[in-house]
């Protein structure tokens, strides 16, 4: 647990010392989502209908932007060797890195999304659904992205490869996240969608750290 906390704190400290990386991700999210209301114009019905899809897709692309560096800097400076040699479980180290990634991307995206949702004319309940579904769903994106980042470590054009690997795996999360907001529009609750998103997050949590650790061990050889 000491090693987990040390790695988690180290990664957060590194982000705080170089906040530009996170600012770029959040700026991309803001710019990408606000383009839609600007492009479509004041058609509130249409904007409200596409809001869920736009916010979720933009959040996914924004999260992917930062995932390429999740393990790449440790690979490039040799710190990955120290992680591989640490006596604790590598799976826990992986979890620490994905958790810190979520804290600096998933969490701010979930908090920012309702503010952007106002531009789409979403009502209070839909704005809450946007925030809640992103809060529950973005950890899955961090874990899936982590797997893709580990598998593409050291590859040329790893950013494009990462997107190709991660995007299809993120589809179920995006579908249920978007579906939650549509469900509110049709008068249904979004509890079921939220539960499915939580189940997907738990499945990712229970399986992906082992896959990521295996990919890191291969990359280290």
């Amino acid at each position, binding site marked *: 647990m000491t*090693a987990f906390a040390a790695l988690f704190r180290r990664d957060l400290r590194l982000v705080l010392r170089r906040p530009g990386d996170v600012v770029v991700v959040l700026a991309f999210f803001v710019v990408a989502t606000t383009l839609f209301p600007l492009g479509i114009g004041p058609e509130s019905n249409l904007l409200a209908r596409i809001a869920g899809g736009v916010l979720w897709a933009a959040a996914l692309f924004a999260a992917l932007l930062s995932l390429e560096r999740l393990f790449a800097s440790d690979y490039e400076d040799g710190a990955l*060797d120290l992680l591989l040699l640490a006596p604790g479980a590598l799976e826990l*180290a992986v979890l620490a890195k994905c958790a810190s990634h979520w804290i600096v991307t998933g969490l701010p995206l979930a908090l920012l999304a309702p503010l952007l949702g106002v531009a789409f004319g979403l009502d209070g309940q839909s704005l809450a659904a946007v925030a809640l579904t992103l809060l529950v769903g973005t950890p899955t994106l961090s874990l899936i992205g982590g797997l893709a980042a580990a598998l593409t470590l050291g590859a040329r054009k790893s950013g494009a490869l990462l997107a190709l690997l991660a995007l299809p795996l993120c589809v179920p999360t995006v579908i249920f996240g978007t579906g939650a907001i549509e469900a509110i529009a049709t008068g249904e609750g979004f509890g079921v969608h939220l539960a499915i998103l939580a189940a997907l997050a738990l499945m990712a949590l229970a399986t992906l750290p082992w896959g990521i650790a295996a990919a890191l061990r291969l990359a280290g050889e």
Partner: protein
Amino acid sequence: MTTAALQVTDLACRRGGRRVFDGLSFSVKGGELLALTGANGSGKTTLLRALASLGRADAGTIVWQGADIAWLGHLDGLKGDLTVRENIDVAERLRGVTPDRQRIEAALASFDLAALASRPVRTLSAGQRRRTALARVAASQANAWLLDEPFNALDMASQKSLRAVLAQHLAAGGLAIAATHVSLDMPGARSLELGA
């Protein structure tokens, strides 16, 4: 410090269809320093990584007894945005060990890094970064040091410091294996030439 021992038997390694080394057998015990020498591409780093379980061997066995390994790779393994002291502190915590402040300060002093301890590593020269990575190894409470080209980028004074730290480690019963092109003539040292 508990004593570590290493026994390697009939080790073979191939990379990309090429035999890097074959039938390699040797042993190292506490108080000994084994210098891995040989031309570029002779397999020094490959062997060192296999000994650390960072790489795989194709045949043979590697048996460690009572070893707690500290690693210095070809790359320094330092985070540029952390200070010298923070890098050493985090490395110890990643090894699951509570950092020993006295050991850290002593290691910093050994490599003449005390004045640089609060500086971010990205502001240091290549030699200063190498000294920081060496201080990380020296500050660890590990009894088996695996060092890949530890003398890289070091000036004469730093090379002398490294020899002194290595001698101290061996005297305390630690073992060290170093891939190097530099001659290591000190008590307890012997060499294994690869590709010979």
